[in-house]
């Protein structure tokens, strides 16, 4: 096994061209488990923690461009106001030790459907910047996540940044697990309300091979809010609309039975989380 430790992004991309087999390593919360348990023996590992460019973030218009090496701890300390949905999800990641090491880029690289950061990023309409020596490209997160633990990265590419629109309104996240800490999501749900654009964003985690939007639920709720003039009136959302929204959330999922839960439990949990997050977010919008 070879150990590569680039100091700059340019060097990292050069190394990835020369050694596309090199597996990127950031906080190690996924890859080290595979190494420790002899599940994986990469020919080469590329440590990205010394690449300063990947640890920075900046504002670009109404978006934040967050380096892929951003840890959950730093995200909570530095960006919790701008990205409240992602912040709530980040607080549910592992433990303090895990949040100190785990990165947004790592969650995207592993591309597990149970990645806690993914539903809020999907709900916020994030996009992913990837680069190789040939240049860079930006993909919608839903195009980046292509399958169970699969993403759209080419072998010579690295995830460089995550572009996320700053929250324009209430954002919520809910996660089901057997306890509060150190838990892999049985399923999770993220909701993003944008009163300016009159838009609703959603993200469903751990209830299908990939993290997906509940597009029909988004459309239904947008119509219900528009037709009832609820954005203007700040009135309560009728129960019937909340219930239908939550049903559509559950219908958008494609869960399976596995060790953490059954498909029917996950569907049921999604209806509860759909209603709950909507009540929380709308309550916040109403100033309650």
């Amino acid at each position: 096994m070879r150990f590569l430790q680039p100091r700059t992004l340019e060097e990292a991309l050069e190394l990835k061209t020369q050694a596309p087999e090199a597996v990127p390593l950031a906080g190690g919360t996924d890859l080290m488990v595979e190494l420790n348990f002899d599940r994986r023996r990469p020919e080469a590992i590329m440590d990205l923690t010394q690449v300063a460019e990947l640890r920075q973030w900046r504002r670009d218009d109404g978006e934040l461009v967050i380096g892929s090496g951003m840890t959950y701890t730093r995200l909570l300390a530095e960006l919790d106001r701008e990205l409240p949905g992602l912040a709530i999800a980040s607080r549910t990641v592992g433990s303090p030790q895990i949040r100190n090491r785990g990165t947004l880029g790592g969650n995207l690289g592993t591309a597990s459907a149970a990645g806690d950061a993914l539903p809020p990023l999907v709900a916020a309409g994030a996009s992913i910047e990837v680069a190789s020596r040939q240049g860079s490209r930006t993909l919608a997160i839903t195009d980046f996540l292509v399958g169970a633990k699969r993403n759209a990265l080419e072998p010579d590419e690295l995830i460089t940044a995550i572009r996320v629109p700053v929250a324009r309104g209430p954002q919520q996240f809910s996660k089901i697990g057997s306890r509060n800490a150190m838990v892999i999501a049985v399923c999770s749900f993220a909701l993003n309300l944008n009163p300016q654009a009159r838009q609703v964003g959603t993200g469903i985690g751990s209830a299908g091979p990939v993290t997906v939007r509940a597009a029909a639920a988004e459309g239904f709720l947008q119509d219900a809010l528009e037709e009832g003039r609820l954005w203007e009136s700040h009135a309560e959302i009728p129960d019937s609309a909340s219930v239908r929204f939550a049903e559509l959330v559950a219908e958008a999922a494609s869960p399976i039975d596995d060790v953490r839960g059954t498909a029917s439990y996950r569907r049921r949990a999604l209806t509860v989380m759909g209603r709950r997050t909507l009540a929380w977010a709308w309550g916040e919008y109403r100033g309650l």
Partner: protein
Amino acid sequence: MNLSLRVNGAEQEALGVWEGESLLYVLRERLGFPGSKNACEQGECGSCSVYLDGELVCACLVLAAQAQGRAVITIEGLAEGDELHPIQKAFLESGAVQCGFCTPGLIVATHELLERNPSPSDAQIREALAGNLCRCTGYEKILDAVRQAARARSA
């Protein structure tokens, strides 16, 4: 590969390290710091909690090569010679130690908590120690120990 890093304030060198080795393995098996325990090897139990450049981490999830040139503090680095650290004393006096396997990690995590937040609430203690599993005590005595250590610190 050869590694050099600072452990508990002293330069250490590990020669012939396999590139896939964890920091925990290097600390325990190559550098003679067996205080950090190897239990789950997947970041679940916190028994190997150490400071890496001032940050609380699970040593089993750090590739040893990533610690090249960096500063590690282990449980062995908290006591002053034969004098136990006040947190260690609090754990002993509160009966927070049964089999003792989780204790080093819990003490390092408690140390980190009290550095950050000298008088934590019970909820903050639970949150800070959420990544450290104990299978003996039921945690109540551990909470007592952390409260006692916080009181001793502010006294």
